């Protein structure tokens, strides 16, 4: 790639999926960068909500934890954890939720709990945190993760947070809200669900190939008929990321 890293491309691509005026449930790391980049660019009225119970955050520095004190100072409101999950997420007040995860499967389900069997796991991961509720109750969900075969299995070992389960109809039948995981932004491109809820490739970042994306996906990845190429990051997007949002490049390496 020329003049920017794949992390920068991921963050920029994710930022462009946010619309002005939306209420976004923000995660730490790259999702935080994407939301704050969008707020400084095309979405100045983006309402940033953090799991710790912070509404309308305007962080003056890069938060390294989800409850960082910089998120509180200058925020519009602070509420309890019960309220952030019940009044905001469960009650349908969140437009967009951002999630990552160790595994994302063919139907956009997320595993952040165990690799292998739950009782005798090969790898124990941190667990749900708020992921189960964000995935189930935000009106749409954006996923950010590097494109690697072990991260994109045909089926998750454990569903920590529901995408379309085994197909779009199952998500509806389970009584979950919203459109589910509408986009998965990786370092190679963007995946989105088709009518059945299966993730297909809808965009490739500059320099990435369909073969690369297929080689790094655990199911036979299909390309959308109108497969497009992502616009590379602009000079202004890169300047904001590098000079203002993550000057120490904590989340922009590689």
């Amino acid at each position, binding site marked *: 790639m020329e003049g920017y890293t794949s992390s920068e491309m991921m963050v920029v691509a994710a930022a462009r999926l946010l619309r002005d005026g939306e209420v976004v449930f923000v995660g730490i790391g790259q999702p935080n960068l994407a939301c704050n980049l969008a707020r400084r660019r095309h979405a100045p009225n983006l309402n940033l909500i953090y799991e710790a119970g912070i509404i309308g955050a305007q962080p003056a520095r890069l938060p*390294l934890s989800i*409850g960082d004190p910089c998120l*509180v100072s200058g925020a519009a409101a602070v509420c309890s954890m019960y309220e952030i999950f019940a009044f905001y997420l469960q009650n349908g007040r969140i437009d967009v939720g951002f999630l990552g995860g160790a595994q994302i499967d063919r139907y956009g389900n997320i595993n952040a709990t165990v690799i292998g069997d739950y009782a005798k796991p090969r790898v124990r991961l941190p667990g749900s945190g708020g992921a189960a509720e964000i995935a189930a109750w935000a009106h749409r969900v954006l996923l950010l993760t590097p494109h690697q075969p072990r991260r994109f299995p045909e089926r998750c070992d454990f569903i920590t947070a529901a995408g379309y389960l085994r197909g779009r109809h199952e998500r509806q039948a389970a009584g979950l809200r919203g459109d589910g995981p509408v986009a998965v932004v990786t370092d190679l491109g963007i995946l989105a669900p088709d009518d059945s809820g299966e993730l297909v490739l809808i965009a490739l970042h500059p320099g990435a190939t369909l073969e690369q994306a297929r080689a790094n996906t655990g199911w036979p990845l299909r390309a959308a008929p109108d497969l497009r190429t992502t616009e590379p990051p602009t000079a202004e997007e890169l300047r904001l990321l590098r000079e203002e949002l993550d000057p120490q490049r904590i989340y922009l390496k590689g």
Partner: protein
Amino acid sequence: MSSYASNKLMTLREAIARFVHDGDTVYCAGFTHLIPFAAGHEIIRQRRRDLVLARATPDLIYDQMVAAGCARKLIFSWGGNPGVGMLRAVRTAVESGRLEIEEYSHFAMITRLTAGAAGLPFLPMRPTGNDLPRVNPQYRTVRCPYTGMDLTTVPALNPDVAIIHAQRADAQGNTQIWGVIGEQREAAFAAKRVIVTVEEIVPSEVIRSDPNRTLIPDFIISAVVHEPYAAHPSYTQGYYDRDNPFYLAWDQLTAEPGGLERYLEEWVYGVPDRRTYWEKLGPEVHARLAVQPAYSQPVNYGRFD
């Protein structure tokens, strides 16, 4: 009446000795903010055993308590080192079968506390479609008697003791918290006993000048402990910053053989109290964690005398 008032102010050593017993279910509250590390260290020093440790995010405080052999079970909803990686003592104890786990999502965990605080046997939640109910039989379902919708339920959590750190309280225990308020109030009301550690003990007039900021009133509190810097390496909004370098260093320290044991020896067993711990951290750490003030504007409650 305030007959219960004056005997609540005590040292942390006394509060832990009186109110935390072997086998207790303990909830050390605080979501990233105000995590009561000083109390955790005192529990380790007093060598409590067979505790059931409940917290949404076990954080380093439970990693340390598990490493010290205080716990038999962990109830949690996100078991990592925030922003860094994993909790090695917890993981090792789980893998070796020494530590039982009971796992939830954040909302389920906090809903358990809220049910406990409200005197209900359980509370319902909308379904989330995930696999946790498959592996944790504490998740059940109930049919809504009004809509017929199937709802997920979790049982009340009523800890034997909740430990809360706060910016300030009066000597009676009227406790004020600002910044991230997490699950402190729910934990306090759900628990049978409540220990609060505070950065400052202030006159009752200060508390009563701003009653909306009081999260927990005095009669809920069992012990009030004046313990500045009790949240380090977590933080206290407006008093000192989160020690992010410490959270990063914990990852390396616990990766070294014997690293955890050396830490506990030097920083927990090796110091008698939080004051010594804070002095031992030294001026460079103090300077790094200092925060510039940003005061809120006062509000007018009106006078009626």
